[in-house]
């Protein structure tokens, strides 16, 4: 730590401003939010302390809460399922494509678009055919009229349409991460394996995948956290509707705090979200610790 032989006091002076900002913007709001979750408060009038009643309502009486949790977790599952595919494609590209970087850049394009643009774009794609919906238009011209539907407004399929857009949006992002990871595996390992007779998919299985585990983990954690906070895309495309059919925890939190003016209840939802994030991050990390230990 003290390579530069700087006195501890000097280090403290330089670290302090950042630390204060960090504590002020991260830890204090957490505490405030947890406290607010114990209030019955509309953000205008006087707050009333009601203990854990908000959480009781949330778990037992709020018909929209558990569906929102399910949508959020499904979001996480789908985005995590995407990562192995990204890794597979990255390995293929590394082996077969000569100028792979160009291809990765192309895959990356959706990531640099703003979510609002992506949302509007896909909303138009999902539109009914007579409003210029591309997807339905294509189905019609393929003679698959019976498959056409109003994608974003049928409660049963609307959520899956949203998952898909997210997968599309973040495919390039995770591909880039995985590709970088795969590229960083030393060439000598493959050469040694070649001598031992391991080539192609065999070398993928025994070398690429195990050695990519640390990078794989980064993607998984990013995908998981990214899905838990999923708000903007849902908000732009469906607003959580029709009738809560596409609510995630974040949109439900927004609705409760800012539209229903139940600030305390919104804070309870936020607290729940923090808790879920922490628990799952710990779980994912400990799972990967075991996986890493197995392969190294």
């Amino acid at each position: 730590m003290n390579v530069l032989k700087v006195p501890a006091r000097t280090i403290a002076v330089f670290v302090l401003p950042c630390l204060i900002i960090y504590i002020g913007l991260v830890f204090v709001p957490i505490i405030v939010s947890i406290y607010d979750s114990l209030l019955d408060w509309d953000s205008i009038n006087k707050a009333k302390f009601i203990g854990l009643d908000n959480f009781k309502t949330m778990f037992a009486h709020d018909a929209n809460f558990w569906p929102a949790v399910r949508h959020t977790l499904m979001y996480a599952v789908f985005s995590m399922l995407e990562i192995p595919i990204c890794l597979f494609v990255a390995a293929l590209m590394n082996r077969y494509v000569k100028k792979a970087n160009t291809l990765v850049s192309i895959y990356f394009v959706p990531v640099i678009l703003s979510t609002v643009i992506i949302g509007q774009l896909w909303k138009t794609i999902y539109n009914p055919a007579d409003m210029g919906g591309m997807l339905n238009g294509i189905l019609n011209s393929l003679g698959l009229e019976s498959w056409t539907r109003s994608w974003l407004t049928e409660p049963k399929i609307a959520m899956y349409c949203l998952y898909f857009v997210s997968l599309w949006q973040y495919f390039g992002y995770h591909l880039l991460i995985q590709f970088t990871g795969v590229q960083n595996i030393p060439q000598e390992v493959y050469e040694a394996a070649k001598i031992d007779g391991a080539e192609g998919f065999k070398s993928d299985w025994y070398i690429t995948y195990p050695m990519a585990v640390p990078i794989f983990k980064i993607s998984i954690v990013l995908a998981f956290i990214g899905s838990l906070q999923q708000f903007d895309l849902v908000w732009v495309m469906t607003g959580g509707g029709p009738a809560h059919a596409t609510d995630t925890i974040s949109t439900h939190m927004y609705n409760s705090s800012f539209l229903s003016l139940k600030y305390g209840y919104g804070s309870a939802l936020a607290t729940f979200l923090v808790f879920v994030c922490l628990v799952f991050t710990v779980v994912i990390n400990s799972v990967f610790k075991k996986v890493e230990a197995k392969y190294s």
Partner: protein
Amino acid sequence: MVKKSTKTAAFALTAAALLMGATACGSNNANNTSDNANTGNTGTNAGGNAAAGGDKNVTITFQNIYPDPATPSYKMLHSIVDQYQKDHPNVKIELDSLNTDQQKLKLKTQAASKEVPDITIVNPAAQMKPFVDAKLFAPLNDMLDQNGLKDTFQKGLLDYYSFDNNIYALPDGNNIEVVYYNKDMFAQAGITATPTTYEEFLDDVKKIKAKGMTPIAIGEKDSWTGSFLFMNILLRTNGGPGFLQDVLDGKKTFKDPAFTDAVSAMQDLIQAKAFEEGATSIDYNTGGNLFKTGKAAMMIMGTWETGAIDSSTVGPKVGVFKFPTVNGKGDPDQFMLAPGSAFAVSANSKHLQETKDFLNYFMTEMPKKQFELKNAVGSGQIITGDFKAAGYSQLAQDVLALFQNVKGGDLAFDNTMKPAIAQAHLSSIQNMFVQKVDPAAVAAEHQSAFDSNK
């Protein structure tokens, strides 16, 4: 690893950080406000002291929400104020022009310290009640009787600004919900007369649908639009206004037949595919554009849309009619009302009488100015005159004609009920657009939201 959990935490707390942001804004504003309020007072005091007999010098602070010089409202405000100051050299009107949101915040902080400006702006009904309860506003009954001001307002409109038989504020406008329709598309569907009953209305919807056109445009992603229409049906099935008030007063419940009938009627409309496909993913502007580009035959909306329709491509083809009766019930001259923000006078004003006199003049002049500025649609006062000669469009004239006979009506759901109940209502109505529902279940949903948020 530490880094990652940090990220987790950082994200999760964005929500909480919002809270901090809100608080910070609030306190900033409080500072500004008290500064302003102080300067205002100094001015007033100085004016008062300088007065010696005869006409004393008076400064009236006029907080308003017309800061944009491009709008007719701004021009109206300034020309009336200038005229008044010319006629009364001893009166100085100090304008405090703010954006709507700024003004709301400023007034809240001023109210907390009882430093309300002489004239300020409030929203009707439930939203102004806290201020009235805090006795911040002066009753304006006596002032309304002067110069026949009271009779210039549309019937029933002042009720939304009245508490315990006292009128506390005078509205700057009022819009009503009407049915705009595309005359060409009606002709194509073979409809000769606009419907006056719900059965005829449904029939026309089916005729238009049969021609492969969208009967009604709606932007139901913004769920208040569906609710606004639903409330109009409820206004009819209830045989008149006041259903929600009766629920609030405990005289009725949502299980009342008036309510379930309204749900069934709304459902009939939705099941007849009256609205564009995928309506719940269409936002308000897009929905409006369907009508304004001739892709839908009707739009059921507030009269604030008149100007935008006038200037759209279908403008010259658009007509307007009153929402029909439902099951033979209701009075077509009762409308869903969207009463505007209103001028209130501070009870603690140092120059209460002068302020009232000025406001009386202001409100008497306002209709005339609005007429000249071609801003007569949506006025809360009855405006008469030769609109045709003044260059108003046919549609504007038709809409204005409807205003002449307004016999009261209801406010939107979210103006009457608590936000949490309103949210439950909005999503319940939105749900009807995507699946068939049992009216009794919708009623039960409303009732339980009402009971748990009393």
